[in-house]
């Protein structure tokens, strides 16, 4: 026997249980439920977006629109961003496959006296330069940071992954909890218990 024949023969000893096909029906149901959940989520997001835009229109927040080159999922992309004076932004760009994509967000910062203020345009741009952790459909996990695309699928230990990334000027220490958020610091790896 050749090595290949021996290998196949040896691994023919393991096989999935005969009962597996009985679980197909259960699988199909699970999948439908997932689709339904996703539909509910999409509706919820639409309502939020519609609500948000109505408020913006009514209050006339005096936003500024800019066209900026950003790194999105490892590709340098031209994005049109509306920065609103309430610290929010809406961004539109074309992804690597030519599909129009929208993204929005925003936030507030706290002053020394504890009062809130909306994030400035500069602060929002800094946020957009942050690393992005993506969980792909094929189960792989990636970090996108500027032009870098780092596969971290194998780097989790007890659901925690520590990665050092750099944009050439600054080094960031990232701590990622599997499907449970991440944190970064320019000085040291943030403790997993310090976030989420």
């Amino acid at each position, binding site marked *: 026997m050749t090595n290949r024949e021996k290998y196949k023969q040896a691994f023919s000893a393991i096989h999935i249980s005969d009962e597996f096909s009985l679980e*197909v029906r259960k699988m199909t149901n699970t999948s439908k439920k997932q689709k339904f959940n996703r539909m509910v989520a999409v509706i919820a997001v639409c309502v939020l977006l519609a609500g948000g835009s109505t408020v913006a229109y009514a209050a006339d927040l005096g936003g500024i629109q800019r066209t900026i080159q950003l790194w999105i999922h490892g590709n340098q992309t031209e994005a049109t961003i509306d920065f609103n004076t309430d610290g929010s932004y809406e961004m539109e760009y074309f992804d690597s496959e030519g599909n129009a994509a929208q993204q929005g967000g925003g936030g507030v910062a706290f002053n020394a006296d504890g009062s809130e203020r909306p994030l400035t345009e500069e602060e929002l741009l800094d946020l957009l330069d942050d690393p992005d952790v993506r969980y792909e*459909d*094929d189960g792989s996990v990636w970090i996108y940071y500027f032009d870098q695309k780092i596969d971290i699928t194998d780097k989790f230990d007890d659901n925690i992954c520590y990665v050092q990334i750099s944009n050439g000027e600054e080094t960031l220490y990232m701590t990622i909890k*599997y499907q449970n958020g991440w944190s970064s610091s320019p000085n040291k790896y943030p403790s997993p218990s310090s976030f989420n």
Partner: protein
Amino acid sequence: MRQPVEVLIEKYKNNIYVIAFNVCKNAQDAEDVVQDTFIQYISIKKDFETEQHIRAWLIRVAINKAKNKNNTFFRRNTLPLEDYMEALIFESSESSESSESSELSELFETVMKLSEKYRVVIHLFYYEDYSVNEIADILKISVSNVKVRLSRGRRLLRETLKEVWENDE
């Protein structure tokens, strides 16, 4: 192109189970991976070029899901590999001599003792009949990296198995 999931399950469930077992070293986890892999196929609207493309995608998803399972703290590990192996029956195609059966058992055990990165490449090459280029594409690593892993994996097998594993580089 898409194929009905029932057809794919019938064709590939065992291949996916074996590669998942290869990574997880655990029967229950491997079955969960098979379930999760086919659920993933149903859940996404990805359009495939050929059936070979579907097969390669299923194997890639299964490997990633199995690795993710290994990373979870609450891994089931209900049955240690040694106990599971005791229940396996290794049958040679050429004869039923116990010496050949024990060689196959030894081969299985030696492969499972390799580190995961060598084990997966060896499995895709010898069990799934993928070329070095195809393995690089499935694992999203370079061709030279696949060659190195394959070569080191073979060497480790040869060192342990001696004459049971021929030099086929």
